[in-house]
C-alpha cells in the first residue's frame, strides 16, 4: 500500500484517502457531505455497500474534553468522508510544516544542482567541413572591376554628377517680368474678391475717447449677448499708458476666422439698393391745389351722454341729427352747434337717416326692433306741414296683405313729440337707409340664419317687401344706387349689386377684406368705397373690375364709417384710432381715366374711449365740411 497522504484540509472534499490497514473507499464523489446528514450511512464502498457512520457522534463536550485530555489532539484531523478521526504521523506533520514554509515536499530534492553546459566553449582545432576555399575568394572580381571602371568612366565624362544639395530656402525671381494683360483668364471676371478686413474705429483704440467706452449696463448686456449678436466683437478698454496694454487673447482666433472666411464662406455679388428714400415717395398733386377740403375743427356738438353711433345731415344742410347709446336722438343746428330738440326713444339708437328729398322733412331712426319715422318740425313750415299731409293722406288698400312689419301711426303725445310712423320689425334693426327719391327706405336686420335680413319699405303706400329669398351671409349694410334701380348689399366679405327691376344679381364685388363695416356709393354711381374692420378701405370702380381698384391702408385701427361728398370730389373715413382721413377722390367722366385718389388731410380731435374712436362720418350736403361722431359723446364739425 501507498504511504498515507496527509489531508490538511479535510473539508475540501478530495476523496482519495485511504486509511491505514483498511480499504474503505467512499464512492459518492465530490458532493457536500451534508447531504448524508440525516442518513445512517455516509456513502458507498467499492462493492456498493453502505458505509455506516460511527454509532455515536461526538458532541461539543466530547470535543472539549478531547481537546483538553488528548495530547495528540493538535495532530488529529477529522475526515468527513469516512467520519473518522485520523492522527497524523510525524512525517506527515513534517510535510505540512515544510509546505507551509513554501519548501519542496520531498526532503531529498536539491534545488541547487550544479549546472552542466550542453556545448563546450573551447575552440576546436579541426574544421567541421573539410572543403578548401574557392579561388575567386582570393582574386579580385572582374565583374566588379568592369562596373567600377564604367562608373569611373561616367564620372570622368561628366555623365554622373554628385547629388545636388537640396534647396531649402525658396527662390524668388521677378514673377511678373512679362506681364501679359491678355493672360487674364475668364475666371478672373467671375472672381468675387474677398472684402478687406474692416479698418478699426475709435472704439478699438487702446486709449479711446470716453464716450466710446461702455457703461456698466452696456457691458453687462454685451457679456450676456451671444457672440453673433454683439455689435462690437470686443470690449472697448482704456489703458492709461502703452505699457499697460495686455496681449489680445483672441488674436489668433481672429486671424483663423479670417482664414475660414476666405476659403469657406460662400461669396455672392450683391447689388446694394442705392435708393434715395425721397424718390420712393409717390409724386402726388399738392393738397393745396385740391382745395376745398375740411382742414380745421370748428364746432363741437356736446350734449349726448353716451357714445354717438350715428349722424345724418338734412338735405338743406341746416340741421344735423344724431343718435346715441343714451336712448336719445338730438337735432342740432349746424351753424351754431345748438341742440334744437332732444327726443327720448326706447333704446340705443343704431342708425339715423334724414330723408334726402328736400320737399319732405322726415327722419328715420332705428333702435331695437323699431324703425321710427320722425318729423322734427324744423325748417320750412310748409315742408313740415306737407310732410304731415303726405303721411295722413295714406289710404289703406282694399286687400289687406300680410306684411313682415307692422306699420303704426303715432297719435297724441307721441305725435306732438314728432313721431309719425312706427315700423315694428320681427328682429333687431341695425341700419336704415333712404332711397334718393325719399319714398323708399330699407332696413337691415343682421341674422345669419334666415333670409329675412333686408326689408324695403315704401312710405307713401306703407308697404314692405322682402327682396331676397335666400340667405347669402350676414348682411352688414345696404345702400341704394343714387340714380339707377340698383341695390347694394354688403355681407361680411362681399358686396353684391342687385338690379331691382330685373330682380337679379348683376355683380359681386370681392373686397379682399375680412369684415366689412361700412360702405358708401359715389354720387355718380360708378364707384364705391368699403371700410372694413381690418383697417382697410377698398375703392371699387364698378366699370373696371370686381376687385378693388385701390386698397388704402391709411388707418391704424378698424374703420367704422366712410362717406362720399355729394358735390365735391371728397371722401372721408373714420376709424377707431380717433382720426378722420379726408381724401380727394376725383372721378373723371372720361371712362379711360382712372380715378385719382390723394389723401389730403388727417383730422384729429376725437378722444379714444373704450378703444373706440370715430363711429360715423358724414359730409355736409353742400359745403366741403365733414361731421364725425365719436365714442367720446361728441360730434365734431371740420370745415
Amino acid at each position, binding site marked *: 500500500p501507498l504511504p498515507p497522504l496527509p489531508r490538511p484540509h479535510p473539508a475540501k472534499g478530495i476523496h482519495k484517502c485511504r486509511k491505514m490497514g483498511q480499504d474503505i473507499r467512499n464512492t459518492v464523489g465530490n458532493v457536500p457531505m451534508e447531504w448524508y446528514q440525516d442518513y445512517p450511512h455516509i456513502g458507498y464502498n467499492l462493492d456498493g455497500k453502505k458505509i455506516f457512520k460511527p454509532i455515536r457522534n461526538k458532541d461539543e463536550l466530547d470535543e472539549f474534553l478531547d481537546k483538553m485530555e488528548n495530547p495528540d489532539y493538535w495532530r488529529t484531523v477529522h475526515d468527513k468522508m469516512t467520519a473518522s478521526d485520523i492522527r497524523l504521523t510525524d512525517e506527515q506533520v513534517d510535510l505540512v510544516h515544510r509546505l507551509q514554509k513554501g519548501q519542496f515536499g520531498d526532503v531529498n530534492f536539491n534545488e541547487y544542482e550544479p549546472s552542466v553546459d550542453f556545448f563546450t566553449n573551447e575552440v576546436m582545432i579541426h574544421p567541421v567541413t573539410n572543403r578548401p576555399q574557392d579561388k575567386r575568394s582570393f582574386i579580385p572580381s572582374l565583374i566588379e572591376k568592369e562596373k567600377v571602371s564604367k562608373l569611373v568612366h561616367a564620372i570622368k565624362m561628366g555623365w554622373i554628377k554628385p547629388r545636388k544639395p537640396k534647396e531649402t530656402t525658396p527662390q524668388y525671381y*521677378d514673377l511678373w517680368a512679362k506681364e501679359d494683360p491678355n493672360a487674364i483668364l475668364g475666371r478672373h471676371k467671375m472672381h468675387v474678391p474677398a472684402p478687406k478686413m474692416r479698418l478699426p474705429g475709435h472704439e478699438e483704440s487702446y486709449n479711446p475717447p470716453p464716450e466710446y467706452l461702455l457703461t456698466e449696463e452696456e457691458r453687462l448686456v454685451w457679456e450676456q449677448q451671444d457672440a453673433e449678436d454683439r455689435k462690437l466683437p470686443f470690449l472697448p478698454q482704456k489703458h492709461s499708458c502703452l505699457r499697460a496694454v495686455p496681449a489680445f487673447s483672441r488674436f489668433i482666433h481672429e486671424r483663423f476666422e479670417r482664414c475660414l472666411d476666405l476659403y469657406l464662406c460662400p461669396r455672392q455679388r450683391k447689388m446694394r439698393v442705392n435708393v434715395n428714400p425721397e424718390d420712393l415717395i409717390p409724386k402726388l398733386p399738392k393738397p393745396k391745389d385740391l382745395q376745398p377740403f375740411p382742414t380745421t375743427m370748428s364746432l363741437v356738438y356736446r350734449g349726448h351722454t353716451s357714445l354717438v353711433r350715428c349722424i345724418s345731415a338734412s338735405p338743406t344742410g341746416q340741421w344735423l341729427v344724431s343718435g346715441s347709446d343714451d336712448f336719445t336722438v338730438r337735432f342740432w343746428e349746424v351753424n351754431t352747434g345748438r341742440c334744437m330738440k332732444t327726443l327720448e326713444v326706447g333704446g340705443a339708437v343704431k342708425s339715423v337717416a334724414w330723408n334726402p328729398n328736400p320737399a319732405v322733412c322726415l327722419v328715420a331712426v332705428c333702435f331695437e326692433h323699431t324703425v321710427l319715422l320722425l318729423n322734427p318740425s324744423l325748417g320750412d313750415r310748409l315742408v313740415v306741414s306737407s310732410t304731415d299731409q303726405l303721411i295722413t293722406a295714406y289710404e289703406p288698400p282694399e286687400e289687406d296683405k300680410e306684411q313682415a312689419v307692422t306699420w303704426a301711426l303715432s297719435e297724441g303725445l307721441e305725435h306732438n313729440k314728432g313721431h309719425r310712423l312706427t315700423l315694428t320689425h320681427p328682429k333687431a334693426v341695425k341700419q336704415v337707409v333712404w332711397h334718393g327719391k325719399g319714398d323708399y327706405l330699407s332696413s337691415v336686420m343682421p341674422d345669419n340664419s334666415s333670409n329675412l335680413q333686408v326689408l324695403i319699405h315704401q312710405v307713401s303706400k306703407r308697404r314692405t317687401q322682402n327682396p331676397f329669398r335666400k340667405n347669402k351671409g350676414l348682411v352688414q349694410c345696404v345702400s341704394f344706387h343714387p340714380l339707377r334701380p340698383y341695390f347694394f348689399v354688403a355681407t361680411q366679405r362681399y358686396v353684391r349689386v342687385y338690379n331691382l327691376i330685373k330682380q337679379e344679381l348683376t355683380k359681386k364685388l370681392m373686397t379682399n377684406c375680412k369684415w366689412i363695416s361700412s360702405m358708401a356709393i359715389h354720387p355718380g354711381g360708378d364707384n364705391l368705397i368699403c371700410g372694413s374692420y381690418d383697417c382697410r378701405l377698398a375703392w371699387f370702380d364698378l366699370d373696371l373690375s370686381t376687385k378693388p381698384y385701390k386698397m388704402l391702408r391709411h388707418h391704424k385701427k378698424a374703420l367704422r364709417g366712410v362717406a362720399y361728398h355729394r358735390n365735391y370730389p371728397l371722401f372721408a373715413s373714420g376709424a377707431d384710432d380717433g382720426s378722420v382721413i379726408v381724401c380727394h377722390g376725383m372721378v373723371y367722366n372720361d371712362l379711360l381715366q382712372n380715378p385719382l385718389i390723394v389723401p389730403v388731410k388727417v383730422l384729429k380731435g376725437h378722444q379714444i374711449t373704450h378703444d373706440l374712436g370715430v363711429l360715423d362720418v358724414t359730409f355736409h350736403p353742400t359745403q366741403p365740411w365733414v361731421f364725425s361722431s365719436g365714442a367720446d359723446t361728441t360730434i365734431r364739425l371740420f370745415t
Partner: protein
Amino acid sequence: MGGLQKKKYERGSATNYITRNKARKKLQLSLADFRRLCILKGIYPHEPKHKKKVNKGSTAPRTFYLFKDIRFLLHEPIVRKFREYKVFVRKLRKAYGKAEWTGVERLRDNKPGYKLDHIIKERYPTFIDALRDIDDALSMCFLFSTFARTGKCHVQTITLCRRLTVEWMNYVVTSRSLRKVFLSIKGIYYQAEVLGQLITWLVPYQFAHDHPTDVDYRVMATFTEMYTTLFGFINFRLYQTLNLVYPPKVTQYLDLTFSCAQQKLSALSASLARVVATAEEEENQLDLFPTEGEDQENMQAREKEQKEQEAQKRLFEGLKFFLNREVPRESLAFILRCFGAEVSWDKSLCIGGTYEVTDETITHQIVDRPDMDKQYINRYYIQPQWVFDSVNAQMRLPVEDYFLGTTLPPHLSPFVEEKDGDYVPPEKLKLMALQRGEKPVQEDEEEEDEEEEEEDDDEEEDDDVDDEELTEEKNLKKLEGTRAQGKTLAVKVTPGKVKPWETGSVGNKVRLEQEEKAEEKRLAIMMMKKKEKYLYDKIMFGKKRTTREVSSLRCAPAKPTRPSLRPFACRWR
C-alpha cells in the same frame, strides 16, 4: 408637339453649381487635400441666386462651388503632387515598419515637393493685383513671425516669415511709404501706400501667445505657405523698383539665436545707411513730376498734395530719439525711421543701438513710466503715443500733452473718415483746427511771433476758412461749456421763453410752410405701395439708428469723466 420630355434640373443654374462632396469625389481627393487645394488656388464657394433651383428643390443648407472652378482644378498639376506625397507617406511608413533605414533615408532624400509659383502667377496675373491682395498675407506673416518654436508649425516657416517681414519693413523704411499707424487693443495697425495701393496690416503686441486649442493650425499653415510665396515675389519686385539687390544683406543677421524683436531691430539699424543713400534719388524723381496738358488748378492741387506728402515723409527728419527700455522698440524704431529720425536704445538691451543716453544731441527721449530720476534738460521726455499721433496728424504735435506722467489725450483712429451727420469726437475737431494752422487760444506772445514767421505760407488758407473755423470754435466752446455745466450742475431749470418765430409773422409763415410740407410728405407716404413702403421704412430705420447712435455718443460725456479738454498748447519746434 412631340419631342423629348425635358427633365428638371438638367439645365440652367442647377448644372452650373456643384456641391462640395461631389466636387471632392470628382477630383478624387480627400477632404484635407481638397481644402488645401482650394486655399492654394483661391477657390471659394459661391452663393447661388436661387438656392432652391440649384439644390434641386431641396432647401437643405449646402455649400456650392462653381462647376467651372472645379473643372479648372482638374487640370491642376499640383493635384498629382498631392497624390505623390500620399504615396510617399505610405512608402515611408512601410519602410519604417520594416526597419529599412537605408530605404527611409533614400525616400526622405527624394521627398516630393511642389512649388506654388505658377499658381501665384495664375491667381494674380499682374503685379498690382497681387499687391492689392497682400493685406492678409502681411498680417499672417507678421503673426507667424512672432510664434515661438512650439511645434505649432515648421521652424522653416517661422524663419521664412521673419525674413520676409523684415524685408518688407525695410522696403517701407526705404521707400518711406508708411502713412498711418494706430495703437489698438489688438495690436498695432500700420498703413502704407505702396505704388498707389493702400496696404494695411496688423502686428500683435510683443507677447508670447497662448495657443488656442480650437484653431486648426494646418489651415493657417496652408495659407501661410501660399502667402510666403506671394510675399517673397512681391518683395523681390518691390526691391527691384528701388534698384536694390534682393535678397538684401540684412537677412544675414537673421539667426534664430536672437529673439524675433532683436533680429528685426538689428536688421532695421543695419539698413539705415542705405536709406540715406536712396533719399537723393527720390528727390530727383520728384523734380520730374509736373505733367503737361492739365488744368492749372488740378495741377496745383496735385502739387500741394505732393508737397504735403513730402512734408509727411520728412516729419521727424533731424530729430534724434532715444528709446527707453520699457517702450516697444521694434515698432517705434520702424515708425521713426520711416519718417527720417535717428533712433537708438540702450546697448545692453539689444544690439543695434548707435548712441548712448548720455548723448547731448538727443532731442526726444521716449519714456513710458511715471517718472524719471535723472533727466537731461535739453531733451523732451515724451510718451510713445506722441509719435503715433504725430504721424497720423502729419505734423509734429505739441509735446506738452505727452509729457512724462501726464494723462494722455485720447488716441483716435486715423482710419475713420467722418461723413456728414457722423459723430466727430471733439479731440478730432481740435486736431483738424490745428492742422489747418489755426492759432491756439492760450500762448505767450513770443511764441506767437515765432509761429507767425513759420506760418506765412499758410496765411492764404487761413482767410478762406476763417469763418468756418470761427463758427466751429464757437460750437466747440459751447460744447465745452455745456460739459462743464453738466459736471457742476446736474439739472438746471430755466424759465421758458417764447421763441421769436412763434410770435413774429415772418417766422410763423416759415414754420407753417414747413409744417405743411411735412404733412404733405406724411400723406404721400400713406399712398405708397406696400413694397416700396417696406423698403422706405427699412431705409428710414437705418438712418434713424445711425442718428440715434451719434446722438448717444454726443451726449455720452455725461457717463464717464473726460479729462478737461484744454486746447493744444502750442510750442513749435
